[in-house]
């Protein structure tokens, strides 16, 4: 290769490496803030601050949803299969909210370690299926 081009290539490689390293370090330093939510394990370990708005995410535990009959108050447990966190919320839940579904709730931790949520968002995974397939799967499971 022509020596001039080789020199240019080296310069570019050095610039790119430096930029990539700088970005990587910034990302690493900010990783706690880049994470959208705390997992129940992190909350149980005391990593999440109290009385500050945070997000908590995990799977809604089966049979844990309690609804009040006369208001929109709802409480449920969220788990990452190691620890669970109780979440209390008053408002309309997204369509995809159900037991076994991943959710992200925004709110404040109170002294009891319960998250008083002001917003609940539903997460979904990248597995898409026609309803007939899930019906068939359910039936197979039941048998």
């Amino acid at each position: 290769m022509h020596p001039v081009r080789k020199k240019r290539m080296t310069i570019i490689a050095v610039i790119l490496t430096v930029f990539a390293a700088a970005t990587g370090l910034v990302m690493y330093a900010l990783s706690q803030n880049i994470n959208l939510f705390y997992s129940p394990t992190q909350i149980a370990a005391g990593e999440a601050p109290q009385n500050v708005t945070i997000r908590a995410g995990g799977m809604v535990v089966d049979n844990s949803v309690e609804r009040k009959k006369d208001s929109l108050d709802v409480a449920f447990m969220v788990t990452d299969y190691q620890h669970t966190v109780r979440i209390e919320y008053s408002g309309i839940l997204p369509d995809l909210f159900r037991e076994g579904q991943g959710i992200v709730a925004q709110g404040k931790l109170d002294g009891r370690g319960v998250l008083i949520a002001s917003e609940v968002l539903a997460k979904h995974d990248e597995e898409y299926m026609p309803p007939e397939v899930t019906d068939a799967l359910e039936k197979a499971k039941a048998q």
Partner: protein
Amino acid sequence: MNWTWFHKLGSPKWFYQWASNWGGRCVYLGLMLLVIGIVWGLAFAPADYQQGNSFRIIYIHVPVAVLAQSCYLGMGIAGFVALVWQMKLAPVFIKSVAPVGAVMAFIALVSGAIWGKPTWGTWWVWDARLTSVLVLFLLYMGVIAIQNALDDQVFADKAVAVVSLVGVINLPIIKYSVEWWNTLHQPATFKLTEKPSMPMEMWLPLLFSALGLYLFAAGLAMWRMQSEVLKRERKANWVKKEVMSHGV
């Protein structure tokens, strides 16, 4: 390895003639595939068991989002070629593709927001995936702005090449954001190495619309590059001849 094709790309005249042959074909074939894929996806593919019909926006969202990243990768490579080999066509490529990619990134953001409202319950969250795609869109805007703000074409080309090249660092961040951090956005639907995470009758229309959009964008890029080449080579004899032959 035979490098003739690479050296040929250095000749705007050769490229112009090659693109005259292929530009239109790509655009029309691409449009056809795109229409098939989208109609198939929106009207005939089965609905999702969980999200129902709102999942169908995937047939627009995913192809557009993937293409937005591919366009930027192409610009980054062209930026590298422009800086090292100073090939005439490389800056032409960046200038022509940037607006296409910007539109794709914009549609990806908007269609994602429209999808997010019914399924997640919000138009927007500052999670790593959404934010890094917003950064991609802003990088496109930066490239376009620099290209138009600098009067000296040679200098503008160089500046834009540097931005394109450095901005490529954002691409792995977009790709792996859903794996490195907790995000609201789900992991990728298109996986190169594993089998797709949806059954064939859902996946095929997605493949059609993605391929169609790629071809369409490639043809569009060729057309845009052709007119940019004519503008830049306006003093060359072959351009004069070409224009004259069309009776101008």
